[in-house]
């Protein structure tokens, strides 16, 4: 609509535009972009600087860090640091390794993302494609989960999970996090935008609800599923509060949960293992960062669409 209007009113201007950018205005634009590049480089420094320093510092030994502060250059302790972080058995039971914690994080991330996608796709399908007496009520109940984040009901949630005997289990770790209905809303919006003709055509061909879902809706939703998977994996991998409450058994610790453990050890030490703490931080960020960067386009689409 607005584009049409501009096209009409802007007609005489159109031929002028290319010539303007070719001469004086072009130089003007280019000069201006220097300012923009400076702003952006400053932004990159602000955002990436701390991570770069964290990484380079992790490649030094703790004594150097303790006496000389955080390091900008690459040190010679890279292998020992990361070998210790990944394979050395730490914790009270001496059974936790960075590797083991990473596996738990992976289970949490994947379980959360996949579980949420399946549960919310089914629910959204029922809400959009079926007419049934309790439909509206169900919709509002699911909707209400968006109102209260887990953080405001941690204590009773903990008690419920404890009562069900699910402490220190993957089920207890994953299921309560799935309760929020963000995924259901995301798929509801998407299903609503699917043209009606598809369902009518499918019906004429004699497809039932199951066939329609599996043969038409799921393939149509592929990019949406991928986008939401990326976001949910990152959200799941990065969970902190719930794993703190839920997992007292160290064999269920995730990497992000392990960050807290490293601090506890730190408090009594003369020279804390700064390098190993930062090494664990780097390991905790690698998988989610890689996913976001590799699937950048899809990730942005999922993020922007899901918040609409």
């Amino acid at each position: 609509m607005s584009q049409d209007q501009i096209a009409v009113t802007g007609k005489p201007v159109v031929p002028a535009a290319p010539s303007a950018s070719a001469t004086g205005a072009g130089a003007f634009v280019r000069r201006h972009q220097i300012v923009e590049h400076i702003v952006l480089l400053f932004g990159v420094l602000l955002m990436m600087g701390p991570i770069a320093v964290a990484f380079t510092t992790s490649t030094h030994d703790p004594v150097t860090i303790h006496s000389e502060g955080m390091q900008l250059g690459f040190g010679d302790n890279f292998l020992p640091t990361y070998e210790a972080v990944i394979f050395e058995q730490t914790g009270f039971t001496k059974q936790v390794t960075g590797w083991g914690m990473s596996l738990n994080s992976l289970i949490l991330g994947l379980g959360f993302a996949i579980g949420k996608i399946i549960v919310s796709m089914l629910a959204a399908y029922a809400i959009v494609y079926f007419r049934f007496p309790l439909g509206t009520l169900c919709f509002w109940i699911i909707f209400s989960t968006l109102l209260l984040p887990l953080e405001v009901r941690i204590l009773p949630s903990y008690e419920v999970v404890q009562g069900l005997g699910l402490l220190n289990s993957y089920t207890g770790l994953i299921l309560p996090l799935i309760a929020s209905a963000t995924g259901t809303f995301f798929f509801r919006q998407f299903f609503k935008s699917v043209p009606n003709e598809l369902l009518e055509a499918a019906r004429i061909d004699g497809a039932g609800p199951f066939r329609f879902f599996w043969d038409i809706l799921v393939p149509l939703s592929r990019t949406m599923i991928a986008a939401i998977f990326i976001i949910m994996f990152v959200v799941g991998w990065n969970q902190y509060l719930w794993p703190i409450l839920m997992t007292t058994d160290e064999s269920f610790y995730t990497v992000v949960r392990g960050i807290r453990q490293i601090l506890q050890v730190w408090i009594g030490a003369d020279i804390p293992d700064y390098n190993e703490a930062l090494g664990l931080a780097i390991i905790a960020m690698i998988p989610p960062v890689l996913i976001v960067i590799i699937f950048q386009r899809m990730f942005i689409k999922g993020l922007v669409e899901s918040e609409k």
Partner: protein
Amino acid sequence: MHKAQFQSPLYPYLLLLPQMAIVAIFFLWPSAEAVRSSFFLQDPFFGNETFVGIDNYTDAVTRSDYGRAAWFTFLFTVVVTFFSLGIALLLAVAADNVLRGQGPYKTLLMWVYAIAPPVAGLIGIMLFDQHIGPIVDFFALFGWDMRVGVDYWDSGIAMMIVATWKQIPVNFIFFLSGLQSIPKGVREAASIDNPSASGRFWTIIFPLLAPTSFFLMIINITYAFFETFGIVDVMLKGEPGNNPVTLVYKVFLDGFRGNDLGGSSAQSVILMVFVLALTIVQFRLIERRVHYT
């Protein structure tokens, strides 16, 4: 447009079963339990309960440490929201204007999105460390002897800086996608009417971004309240002592450390009411957003 629908007595309930079961067990039940136990006084040793009416609420709200936490949370939220939105907008406008290198800039600026808040907190506590922290050294040049973990406001400021840093990427992504959805024609027309770039931004581009900004404000307030738990916990090393805490962190402390179930639940319910109000505002805004586009 009305959606064509299936009619089936059983299918929809089967499809909804997993979601509804999870919602009922892990959401409705605990939420109801939070409201209920906020009216009771629990004995942590024998498990007895006494109905105390709204005493937990009046106790919680009138305690001086609650007031302190509420005031800190308010300041924390204002500072984090303002600076993370401001810096992200500046970066998004710059990224939107450059013709070359937009891809790499975008990648590097959104990198931090994927980092968990406690991981950001850990890097932060190192950068602000008394012995090894370069930021403390930097501020010392200006005569500011920063003592994070000891001084109330020094810890608070360090937490605000880390929380702001962590939130910039989300705002940046939304602002940039908002800017890029402004039609080229509008920009061209604007550049003819108004040759000054900054004038153009404030009179045309910024008003067009208003819906995105309002929406992001809500997101940022929610973030500052709830999602900064990991940052606060790690930066205080789990031992708050004399340091500032947010309201959500206080719910956790009183409930799990202080064993004050009723008080913690009452605080939860207060926060629930707050989120409820915020969500209503948010949905109002979304309705209005539909009118814009």
